[in-house]
């Protein structure tokens, strides 16, 4: 009915949070690496604001495509009240129940996926910086 509303709302909050964090974020740890002794490249940790943006992209992208599914099934219409379930109180209650159950489950599941991504990303970053440090010591 409108289950995409919960992840969409979380995506908007997360996007706003990432903007605020980006403004107040310190510059991340950066290491200069040279693999050939001539060209110098820098390796740095991915800022948290960028990682938050991943979550907002996952949730907003998913919500947009899910919204299309609702248009396809005639649950969203181009005239007021835009959601067919909002036209009477009984279906409005069902819609709110669906947002509170399925919608919240979707938001939680996508956040869980993002948390796994954070873990994998942290491992890759640590390994890359450790290897970069080892290479720069040997050179």
């Amino acid at each position, binding site marked *: 009915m409108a289950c995409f509303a919960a992840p969409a709302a979380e995506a908007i909050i997360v996007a706003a949070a990432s903007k605020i964090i980006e403004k107040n974020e310190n510059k991340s740890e950066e290491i200069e690496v040279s693999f050939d002794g001539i060209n110098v490249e820098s390796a740095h940790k991915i800022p948290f604001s960028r990682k938050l943006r991943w979550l907002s*992209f*996952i949730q907003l*992208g998913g919500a*947009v*495509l899910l919204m299309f599914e609702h248009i396809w099934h005639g649950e969203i219409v181009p005239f007021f009240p835009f959601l067919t379930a909002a036209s009477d109180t009984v279906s409005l209650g069902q819609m709110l129940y669906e947002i509170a159950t399925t919608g919240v*489950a*979707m938001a939680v599941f996508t956040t869980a*996926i993002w948390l796994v991504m954070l873990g994998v990303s942290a491992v890759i970053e640590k390994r890359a910086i450790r290897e970069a440090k080892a290479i720069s010591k040997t050179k």
Partner: protein
Amino acid sequence: MNLGLLCWMFWGASAMWFVDAIVEYLDIGSEYFNPAPADMLNDLFLGLSVVALALVIWIIVLLIKDPKGVIKSKIFRK
């Protein structure tokens, strides 16, 4: 190519549809795995349309962002 955007959209949509499928399975049980042919055809067209919509969104964002400045250079050359 800005393929990351497509990746995020499909990733998010897949996760959300998966949750939707679980909820539906909990609701109707094993009948979930015996859809009517008409419903399957409808879902097939829906799936293809969703992929097409994501590609349309992606190309619009790509045209607006113009990462290699191709459109910008074409406009300013004339």
